């Protein structure tokens, strides 16, 4: 970023003079002024290595008199230039004052031609069947700079394995690899999962995976994007379509609060009834949200949208008790009648995938029948209101955190709950940011922390309040940091405990004046894609708790798979007289509902989400419709229309206009505003030859960040921290695994990710295990609170602290404890 403080240097590129900020990479600088220096191994997100030699250019320096510093002139009055005797790799050089660069000359052209010819000596002629063909930098640069014809005999070509699985998700074609090392460097430098390596030397050099299971990382898909050839391809997209046949639709990932911008490549498909189908999902550049990366869950987790379990038609329960298929008009009329007859005893519970539009229409519908009981699902994470007050300031970009800044990650396993935040905090750590991880157990984030503080399970808020006493040196660094971002989750906490922690975090930020500025403030690591949207539109987990305690007559479940999440749900749901279910799937709640309305997933519709950093972002229709499903907001609006609450809107854009008019936080969030884009650095994803296939250019919009109360200059007050902890000999702590068996991720065991999902297990501390005579690998029965006991395998490997058992949620069909509870473990 160029500011008034940045020192500019004069550089001559191809006989024209430019100013660049000092220290800028030469390839990036040239690209900025539309001078192409071709590269294979260089990538602006990684350190240059100068391995591929494609960026060779002529470089010289303007000669100056050593004594006076004046530019020496030659006989004809031009500055004297001392050219370097050999061609230089531009990617390993930075701009400096008086640098002269020639990007095209006979020597440069010949060098490029030779490099390409050499790369092609053993590159197979696979382009017709290669998944990269059509968006391949090697293909492009061969056409642009290559020799045109080969002098190599085919018998002399090196033949290597073409079909090497590097894990379940990625295939390696050893012949195609040009040994640029982008994948190895990405895993080591950016992702921090050092699972790839070079093996052998010279022409035998190959990429291997050094982890077991192979390629064990949540970021493996990114290596296929940055691979400049078709050496790394995904299992998911294998031979799915040719790149030029597909349309790219800007969409969003709906799995976690990061809100990664993604691009769905779509094509018509015979097996999908001739409808448009998502063939693959790739990252879409948004430097403030996900840069150009995304995790494998988002990339490969789109199959649920075409699940066999999807509801196809509206259904109404007949007097006899069985569900019968109805037309939309009849189902809407039935729902309207139930709501109208409820005398205001109505409540809504909305799941984490419900969009802003869905939530707003639900809120209006509830208001229309005299109810304000709006619950957010799952009711595990409190404090979204505090994030709205002291959340990260407008313009926050985690990429700007570095030396002198600090990040605190507390009560969350970022790796599992929000992988891209984990990646971005890791890179901030590499740039010099001081990273503190506080949790009751060891997490992956510890590997990238400067300080790790452990606290007793359930006591996050008190531990945080005591930070200054217990760890004064850590507290000191946080307090004095130029910028401080706090990521707070709710792992090992009750709902009240979560609120206490969020309040403690907010208090700390306010006291140390880390609010109301960019790159400062609180981020809630909430479940789902739209927890902040739930807050702004009036849905809260506290309301859910109230709904559970005092069941209404009519309950609307909007994309909330309550029975699969909460072991107590079956019991409290049975106290509700009537359930109206808006669902994607034929789930348990559907089986108890009087009216079932099939709704569309993010893939089939327009909508918007508000991510954890309060950025409102929109997504577009990518995939063809499934059955008679319609967007949830539309189903709700039709019911409202039937109840005489006014005509249903025709489009999601109109609903957003209503939201903008009704809710001040959403000012400036009309769809046209959300669709605005601006130039981003680095420029990837264009049609140029640089980073073909790397991420997609953002054409769908960068979104608009909602200002926090602190941003707006409102006074933010400290609040009381009411710590809440569970007592017991053994505390069962529900944890989150990224790959799980949730319906919105993986609808069947046959799917791609199935092998990566862990079998149900529980982590027990060695001391507790010894006391209970449990060994690693034993089958045990875990019961927690009121939940049905579950049989799972015990892991005794040091992950759980003493007195705590860690029970991952959603690894099995039966629901396990939703929040922390005292429990027992017995061997079976």
């Amino acid at each position, binding site marked *: 970023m160029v500011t008034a403080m940045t020192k500019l240097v004069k550089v001559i590129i191809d006989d024209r003079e430019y100013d660049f900020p000092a220290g800028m990479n030469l390839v990036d600088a040239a690209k900025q002024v539309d001078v192409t220096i071709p590269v294979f191994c260089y990538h602006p997100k990684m350190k240059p290595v100068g391995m591929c030699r494609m960026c060779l250019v002529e470089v010289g320096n303007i000669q100056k008199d050593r004594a006076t510093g004046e530019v020496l002139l030659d006989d004809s009055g031009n500055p004297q230039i001392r050219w370097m005797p050999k061609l230089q790799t531009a990617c390993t050089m930075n701009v400096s004052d008086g640098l002269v660069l020639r990007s095209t000359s006979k020597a440069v052209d010949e060098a490029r031609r030779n490099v390409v010819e050499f790369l092609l000596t053993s590159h197979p002629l696979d382009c*017709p*069947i290669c998944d990269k063909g059509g968006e391949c930098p090697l293909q492009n640069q061969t056409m642009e700079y290559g020799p045109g014809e080969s002098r190599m005999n085919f018998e002399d070509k090196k033949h290597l394995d073409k079909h090497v699985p590097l894990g379940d998700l990625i295939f390696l074609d050893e012949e195609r690899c040009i040994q640029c090392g982008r994948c190895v460097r990405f895993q080591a430098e950016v992702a921090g999962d050092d699972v790839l390596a070079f093996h052998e030397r010279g022409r035998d050099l190959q990429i291997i995976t050094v982890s077991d299971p192979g390629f064990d990382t949540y970021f493996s898909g990114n290596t296929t994007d940055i691979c400049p050839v078709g050496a790394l391809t995904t299992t998911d997209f294998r*031979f799915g379509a040719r790149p030029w046949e597909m349309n790219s639709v800007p969409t969003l990932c709906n799995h976690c609060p990061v809100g990664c911008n993604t691009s769905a490549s779509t094509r018509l498909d015979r097996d999908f009834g001739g409808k448009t189908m998502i063939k693959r999902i790739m990252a879409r550049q948004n430097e403030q949200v996900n840069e150009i990366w995304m995790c494998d869950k988002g990339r490969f987790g789109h199959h649920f949208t075409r699940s066999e379990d999807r509801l196809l038609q509206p259904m109404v329960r007949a007097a006899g008790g069985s569900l019968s298929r109805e037309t939309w008009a009849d189902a809407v009329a039935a729902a309207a009648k139930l709501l109208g007859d409820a005398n205001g005893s109505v409540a809504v519970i909305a799941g984490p995938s419900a969009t802003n539009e869905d939530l707003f229409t639900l809120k209006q519908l509830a208001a229309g029948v005299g109810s304000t009981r709006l619950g957010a699902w799952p009711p595990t994470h409190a404090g979204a209101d505090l994030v709205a007050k002291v959340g990260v300031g407008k313009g926050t970009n985690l990429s700007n955190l570095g030396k002198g800044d600090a990040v605190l990650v507390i009560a969350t396993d970022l790796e599992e709950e929000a992988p891209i935040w984990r990646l971005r905090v890791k890179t901030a750590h590499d740039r010099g940011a001081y990273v503190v991880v506080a949790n009751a157990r060891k997490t992956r984030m510890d590997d990238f922390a400067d300080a790790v503080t452990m606290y007793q399970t359930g006591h996050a808020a008190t531990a945080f309040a005591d930070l200054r006493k217990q760890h004064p040196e850590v507290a000191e660094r946080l307090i004095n940091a130029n910028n401080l971002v706090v990521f707070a989750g709710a792992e090992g906490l009750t709902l009240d405990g979560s609120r206490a922690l969020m309040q403690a975090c907010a208090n700390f930020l306010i006291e140390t004046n880390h609010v109301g500025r960019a790159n400062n403030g609180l981020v809630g690591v909430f479940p789902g894609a739209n927890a902040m949207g739930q807050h702004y539109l009036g849905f809260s987990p506290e309301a859910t708790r109230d709904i559970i305690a005092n069941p209404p007559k009519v309950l609307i479940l909007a994309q909330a798979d309550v029975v699969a999440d909460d072991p107590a749900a079956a019991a409290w749901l049975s106290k509700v007289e009537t359930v109206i279910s808006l669902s994607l799937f034929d789930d348990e709640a559907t089986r108890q509902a009087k009216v079932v309305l099939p709704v569309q997933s993010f893939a089939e519709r327009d909508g918007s989400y508000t991510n954890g950093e309060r950025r409102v972002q929109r997504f577009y229709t990518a995939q063809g419709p499934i059955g008679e499903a319609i967007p949830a907001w539309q189903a709700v609006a039709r019911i409202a229309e039937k109840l005489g609450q006014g005509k249903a809107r025709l489009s999601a854009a109109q609903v957003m206009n209503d939201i903008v008019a009704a809710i001040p936080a959403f000012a400036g969030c009309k769809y046209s505003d959300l669709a605005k884009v601006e130039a981003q650095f680095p420029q990837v994803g264009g049609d140029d030859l640089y980073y073909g296939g790397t991420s997609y250019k953002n054409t769908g919009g960068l979104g608009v960040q909602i200002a926090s109360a602190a941003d707006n200059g409102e006074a933010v007050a400290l609040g009381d921290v009411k710590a809440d902890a569970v007592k017991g000999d053994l505390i069962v702590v529900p944890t989150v695994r990224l790959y799980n068996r949730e319906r919105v991720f993986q609808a069947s065991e046959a799917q791609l990710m199935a092998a990566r999902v862990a079998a149900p297990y529980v982590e027990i501390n060695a001391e507790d295990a010894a006391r209970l005579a449990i060994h690693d690998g034993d089958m045990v029965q875990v019961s927690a609170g009121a939940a049905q006991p579950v049989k799972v395998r015990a892991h005794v490997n040091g992950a759980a602290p003493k007195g705590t058992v860690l029970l991952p949620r959603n690894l099995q069909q039966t629901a396990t404890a939703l929040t922390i509870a005292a429990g027992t473990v017995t061997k079976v």
Partner: protein
Amino acid sequence: MNILRGFATTFKHLLEEPITVQYPEQMRPFRERYKGRHHLRRYENGLEKCIGCALCAAACPADAIWVEAAENTDEQRFSPGERYAKTYEINMLRCIFCGYCEDACPTQAIQLGHEHQLSFTDRQDAIFTKDMLIDPTAIGVAGTPQQVEPGVYTRSIPDMENPR
């Protein structure tokens, strides 16, 4: 005088043999390079030449070709190499018989033949599927998919020529 010259021409043509061909009872031989309806060719061992690369579809100016690819295995092998055409369709109503598909094909799998009598009673019939386009196998040769020895058919383009 002129009128006689005119009649002479008339009578000359009256005595000539007619050039009318009684089509369809009678057919003239086709030129070797006539571009009629397409055929998908096979190798002698019965494997399909088509590798599902969709370059024909990319070259097609009329957007008449639809290809969907899938992966070969040695247990179920359709073509040499990793990829084969799962779906291959040509809409004969759209096709303008320009032959660009034949030019684009890296394996000479698609070739325009001599058959030109194409008539349809509805639009759906005009879409020729892979089953209709692919050549039958020679007598005694297995069709596809075949179970083959592992490691034999690893290349999509089996016979590469050295640069001349």
